[in-house]
């Protein structure tokens, strides 16, 4: 160590003994509880089709074939269909967290695409002081929210399903066995979206592809854990919003109404966000539906709602 005023000051800095002991104890505790070495295993849920649901799906499938856009080629009796239809559904929870139906994403009505218990949220603040160094207030400069995506594609001969986010990003569970491929964010995208928070092992991607039989959805029988952190659904969409300077301030970080702020800001700029859901068929073709979003805040929960973009 070179001797000077700086190093003399640094020499005095010691890691607190309690911190060291606590960290070591945490390691032993984590290993003893198998938290460090054992990967959590996730079940694959299969949607149980009752005869009524199956009949409904067939009816909707038939209607969807009629309603889908023509890609310019007229089908002839001797040619294969140019585009393959698929149904995009979601298991949306009601205000009590109960869900008993799969709702098809509509072109006319926003449908909730996440359960009431979202995953991650956060906000950043800048603290302001006066001339004497006294605390004045905190200015909120950014908010971020992650929503679980529980979408389901149904159709004939679909091999994989690809989700692609526009002007935002997905977070995905790398260990999920149904994940075929994830296209990770570039460094520029990470900077742009401030996509640095990952304390739970999720990765960040612009696009994720899943096996058709292992889509990132829950089932009718899925039970939410009491602590509301439902990490077993392996795909989320995250929205990072930079806020106007001085627009939101607080004198108590514990009482910030993140739901309200996020809802207002997100809905004012929601046009820039979109999610492509692409069904990739066995014959090499694919069909894409694009979803647009808005947020709905009922003062208790913040929901992400989607509508099919027909523009």
């Amino acid at each position: 160590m070179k001797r000077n005023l700086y190093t003399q000051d640094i020499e005095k800095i010691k890691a607190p003994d309690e911190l060291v002991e606590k960290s070591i104890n945490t390691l032993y505790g984590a290993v003893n509880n198998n938290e460090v070495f054992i990967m959590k295993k996730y079940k694959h849920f299969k949607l149980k089709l009752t005869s009524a649901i199956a009949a409904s799906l067939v009816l909707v499938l038939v209607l969807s074939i009629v309603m889908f856009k023509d890609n310019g080629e007229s089908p002839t009796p001797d040619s294969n269909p140019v585009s393959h239809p698929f149904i995009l559904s979601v298991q949306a929870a009601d205000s009590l967290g109960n869900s008993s139906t799969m709702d098809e994403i509509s072109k006319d009505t926003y449908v909730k695409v996440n359960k009431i218990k979202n995953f991650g949220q956060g906000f950043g603040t800048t603290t302001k002081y006066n001339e004497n160094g006294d605390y004045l207030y905190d200015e909120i400069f950014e908010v971020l929210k992650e929503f679980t995506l529980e979408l389901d594609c149904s159709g004939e001969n679909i091999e994989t399903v690809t989700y692609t986010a526009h002007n935002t990003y997905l977070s995905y569970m790398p260990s999920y066995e149904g994940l075929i491929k994830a296209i990770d964010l570039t460094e520029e995208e990470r900077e742009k979206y401030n996509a640095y928070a990952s304390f739970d092992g999720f990765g960040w991607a612009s696009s994720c592809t899943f096996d058709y039989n292992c889509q990132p959805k829950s089932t009718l029988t899925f039970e939410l854990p009491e602590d509301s952190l439902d990490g077993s659904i392996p795909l989320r969409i995250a929205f990072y919003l930079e806020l106007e300077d001085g627009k939101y301030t607080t004198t108590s970080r514990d009482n910030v109404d993140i739901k309200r702020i996020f809802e207002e800001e997100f809905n004012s700029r929601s046009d820039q966000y979109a999610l492509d859901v692409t069904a990739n068929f066995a014959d090499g073709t694919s069909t894409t539906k694009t979803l647009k979003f808005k947020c709905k805040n009922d003062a208790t929960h913040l929901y992400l709602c989607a509508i099919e973009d027909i523009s």
Partner: protein
Amino acid sequence: MSEQNTKIKQAEQIIRLYADMIYRIALHNLKNTADAEDIFQDVCLALLTKNAPLFDDVHIKNWLIRVTINKCKNFRKSHWQSKTEALDLSRENPNKTQNLIPELVYSLPQKYRNIIYLYYYEEYTIAEIAEILGENKNTINSKLQRARKKLKEILEEGDNL
């Protein structure tokens, strides 16, 4: 002893040996003790989860430095982080950092602070610092020169270069 227990014992030894270094680097980057303690715990856990060279005495120290700096970098940009800034340095809340690290050092950009610490306190060469931080040697040298000008009064005494 099982392989798992061997690793934990080794990790414990490493933590005890380098605890002060990890903590100091975190303080240099984050400027407050609460955040530095969070990073400290993250780095300790990373010893068992991130393929650390636990049994390589030569490289484990460099690994710890890189991981700590990277975690601090990510932490600062995290949406979970509550960033604290004074209106300007002269009016910074004196209670925030308890004056652990000289204010002049805090006035430097984050990368300069790491270079100053690694050069003057850990006594790494410029080449070694360049390798640890993944930067060009000339870049490190330039930054060190600029930092020295600004920190002249606290780096001069006993400076043998």
